[in-house]
Structure formats: C-alpha cells, structure tokens
C-alpha cells in the first residue's frame, strides 16, 4: 500500500475502531484490519499513539490502555470514545438515499432487512423514518426490469423487443445481460448484443418486452463503462450554433468543446452516436440551432426531418 493516509484519516478510523473493539473486550488483529481497512503495521502505529492519549494530568488512570497481544487487540479505559462519532449530514444522506434507491427497485422486499435497517438508521441520524428523501432510479416498466434482473442474476440470455432511438426502429435482439445500471435517472442494460457481437447499452424504458431464455452466458471479467453515453472513437462530430434559449444543450450532452460567440450564443462540437438522436434534437431546437459544420448527411438532417414531418400535417 503506497496510499498516503493523513492524520485526519487515521483519526476517523480510530474514532470508529476504538468503540468497536472496546465494546467487545478485544478482537482479532486480522478481523480489525479487514473491517477498518488498514494493515497490521498501520494498526500498530495507531495503537501506540492511542496508548499515550488521554486527558490532563496524563497519570495512568487518565490514559487509554491499548495493546496488541497474541494476535488480539485490546483497548480499555477509552471512555471518551465509548461510542462512535455521529454521521455527518452527508453520510446520513448517502445512507438514506442509497437505501431508498435500492428499495425502489422491483424485487426488494419493502418490509425486509433493508427497510428495517433504514428505519433504525433514520432514528440514529435524527431523520423522520420514511421522510426527508425520495429516490427514483428511472422510469421503466417494472415487469421488464424484473425480467432483466432475473436473467442477469441467473446468467441467462434474454430476447428483447427493443426500440432503437437512434435508428428509430423496433428490433428483436438476443443479449447477454451482464449488468443493469441506473445513471442520469434512467435504467440501462449493458451486455453483449449477439447480432453485432458488440458490447453495448440498452435503455430499459425502450424495451417493450424481455423473454428470459434457457441459454446460459459467460459474464466477462471486465464489463466496461456504466455511463449513459461513452464517446466512441468513430462517432462523427457536428458543429452547432445555439441561441441563448438553447444553451442548455451544452450542459446536458457530452460535448467536445464549447465556444462563446457573444450575446449568449454558443458554438458546440457535439459527438453524434446515432443520426436519429441528432434528428430529434434538431427538430426540437428548430430555429434555435444551426448546424454550421459536419458530415453532409448530418448537416441537412434537421431540415430533411422537419420537411418529412411536415408532410403529415399537410
């Protein structure tokens, strides 16, 4: 371990470790190291300091006793540190929010151990059980999400009726469901697409139905990125000028660069994963955006799409 720990980090660890060991009347060195993420050497150094810690006048009765013996840690007379320090507000929120997020996932028992733990933790951090924070990981058909979870956990391939936003078509795909993840408020399935033999993401809210097959799959050791969009080297880039009213685009999509044009106008370099995606963005932005450069088929995409949609309204 070459990671440097600061005095603050060591203090945080000690303030949690001391009450835990003291309450048990001692614990195995190995277990303490595993639980509190330190090496035996680090533990030994911290205990040596603890041994000289105490309050004025630092007579033996005013000092902590801490020692290592026969592979066990002993700590006593650490009355100041008999209980761990309260959670910080951020720690309390992280706990409550992650637990509530998991409870919102289908298949989690709403009255099970996690729900009971959450109620107890709420009391310990001074929050109202069941209030204060709500988390929704993504809008998706709960049946579909549950089927994908089943398939992923059981290691079975799934057949998806999938709507591709980019190409604007429904297709049937056979997929090895490696991993389900939620990012940016949407659920995604990451897995191997048998048709293209490529690893990719599927938005769960675009899966119309999922059928769990009886075919097993091998999950690779490296599952790849769990980001909503990861830039692929071959993705074309369009240069787009945005009116002030459309400047939100620069903040809500990964862009290669943003230039200020003055008067609140922006010029962005936008990587495009699928033409269908750009078409939607351009008709939505209408006169608020102008494509100034890019591959020819993308430069005209907004105009062409708008003209086609207009036919329907004639």
């Amino acid at each position, binding site marked *: 371990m070459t990671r440097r720990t600061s005095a603050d980090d060591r*203090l945080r660890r000690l303030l*949690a470790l001391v009450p835990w060991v003291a309450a048990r009347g001692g614990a195995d060195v190995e277990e303490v190291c595993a639980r509190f993420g330190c090496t035996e050497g680090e533990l030994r150094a911290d205990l040596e300091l603890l041994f000289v810690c105490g309050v004025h006048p630092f007579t033996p009765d005013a000092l902590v006793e801490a020692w290592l013996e026969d592979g066990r840690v002993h700590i006593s007379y650490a009355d*100041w540190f008999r*209980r761990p320090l309260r959670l910080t507000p*951020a720690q309390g929120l992280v706990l409550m929010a992650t637990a509530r997020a998991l409870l919102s996932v289908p298949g989690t028992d709403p009255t099970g151990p996690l729900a*009971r733990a959450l109620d107890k*933790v709420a009391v310990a951090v001074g929050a109202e059980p069941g209030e204060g924070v709500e988390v929704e990981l993504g809008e998706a058909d709960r049946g579909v999400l549950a089927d994908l979870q089943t398939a992923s956990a059981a290691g079975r391939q799934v057949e998806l009726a999938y709507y591709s936003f980019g190409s604007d078509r429904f297709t049937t795909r056979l997929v090895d469901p490696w991993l389900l993840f939620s990012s940016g408020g949407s659920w995604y399935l990451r897995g191997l697409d048998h048709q293209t033999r490529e690893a990719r993401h599927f938005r769960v809210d675009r899966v119309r139905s999922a059928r769990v097959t009886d075919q097993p799959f091998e999950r690779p050791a490296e599952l790849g990125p769990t980001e909503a969009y990861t830039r692929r080297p071959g993705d074309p880039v369009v240069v787009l000028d945005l009116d002030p009213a459309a400047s939100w685009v620069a903040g809500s999509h990964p862009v290669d660069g943003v230039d200020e044009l003055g008067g609140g106008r922006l010029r962005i370099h936008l990587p495009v994963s699928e033409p269908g995606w750009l078409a939607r963005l351009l008709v939505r932005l209408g006169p608020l955006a102008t494509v100034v450069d890019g591959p020819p088929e993308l430069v005209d995409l907004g105009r062409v799409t708008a*003209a086609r949609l207009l036919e329907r309204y004639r």
Partner: protein
Amino acid sequence: MGTEQDRKLERLLDLLAALLEARDPKARVELQRLVPLYPEDDVAARRAFSRDIEALARMGVPVEVVDGQVPAYRVQREAYELPDPGLTDEEAAALHLALATVELDLPEGSPAESLWKLTGGAAERITAPSGSTARLPGSEHLAMLWAAVNARQPVRFGYKAELREVEPWQLSCQRGHWYLQGLDRSRAAQRLFRVDRIEGLISPVGAAGAFFRPADAGPAVPPPPWLLGDEVRYEARLWVDADQAELIRAAGSFEVEERRPDGSVVLSVPVANPEAFRSFALTLLDHAEVLGPPEARADVVAWLETTAR
C-alpha cells in the same frame, strides 16, 4: 509515516478527549494547557489550534463555540455520540449491500466511514451483485439541505436570480436530478427547486424547528415539462402509433382518449407550457401527430416550416 503526522494525530486525540471531558466551555489557552502538544510560540500555537478545530468540525465533531471575551470551546457527549441503532447482522448486511450497489459521491459522505460507525465495517468485502448498480448525481448543496430538512430549519438561497426564503420539506432524486420541495415564503406557495440550479450559498434563516411538512404536501416529483406553467391552456390531442404507445404508457400516466384498431392511440394531454409540449411531440418524430386544438397544431406546423427552410 512521519513523526510529524503522529504528533498531529496524538494532539487531535487529546484535544478531542479534553473537549469531551470539559464540563464548561474552555478557552484556547486553557485547552492548550490541558493538551501540552502545541508549539511554544503563541502565533504558531494559535494557528495549529484553529486548524485542529477545523479538522474536527469537518469530520463532523459538533464543536460548540461559545462567544465571550474570548471564544470558548467544548463538545457535548449527547451531540457527539452516535446512538446505537441496534442493527441485526442481517440488517447490517443489507446496508452494506445498498452502499455497494448505489453510488452517491458527496464531500464528507464516505460510505465506508458510515459503515465503520454503524456496524464496525464488514469482516468480508461486500460487492454489488452482478445484477445491478446505480449512480446518483452529487451536489455540493445536498448535505446542507438534508441537514435543514431534518432540523426543520428555514433557509435562504438564490434561484433564478432571486433570493428565496424556503421551508425545506423534502429532497428527491428524479430523472437524474435532485429536487428540493418546500414552501417558498417569498411567494407563499409550495415549490419544487432543482438543487443544481441553486445559486451561491445556502444560509439558515431564524431558528430550527420552525415548521412542519404538511401531510398533504404530495410527492416531491417534478411534473412533466408541458405542465410547468401557471395554468392549463388547453387539452391537446396527440396521436401516437402502436409501437410508441406502449413505451409511452410505461413511462408516465397519460389519459387515453381513443384506441384505434391498428393499436395506435389518441392521448389527451393537459398543456400549461406549449413549447415543452411541442418539444415532446416532435421528439416522437413520425410516431406522433398533434391533432388539436387548432392553435397547438398550427404551432407545430409553423415550427416545422421554419426548421425545414
């Protein structure tokens, strides 16, 4: 590990013990007498002392500072000590799993340290099941707002270039964004604020425990964008083809006005924000058509004509 760091750790431990031991708030010089590890030089000692107090406060130690002729310090045990939540092994394991599965990265929010405090950590490494993981967006304001929600502490912050005074009721994470639900005192109305659009710092106003979240506050969920507005202008009629109808139904609640034999539907959509409704309809490309009212249809046509030019 240098002796410098050891000395600092020892000093922090002794200072904390002295602060917890103090029955009355104690001034810096007195604490330095009780903790004889500070530099002899007064300026250096003063600097080291205030750095130590800051370090303790940062990790969540409730250091009380009492103003007098000179500031005095102490830490009250009840405020310092985490009450034993009494978690069973099964409940502790469920918490570990939740923290391994869902990620929310906040300053001073370390989940590992939370678990040390609550459960004494885990004897074996707990990793997310191969099934699922989730990531929630972080924000610098969240911890402060969460503390205010729990303390029922009114707060003031800038939002859309105006200073708001808000009774914070609840935080919610929806569609990838954090929202604060509360009473906007400046407008005497319930509001939902996007946390990442809060401008500048958040400061407390008045005393804690100043309000209750009303029982009928409703969910802290943002309405769809086309409902963001002062009043419903019209009920739009939106035709959606069979494929998209199924996906849309799963994504939100829509009133179906008519079902056609080919599986397509006509939805009745209340619209308070015509621009947002137009965006929504256009995002469906060829799968949707705004049938009415005439003003909504004319708006889409005019927009497309400008775009097609």
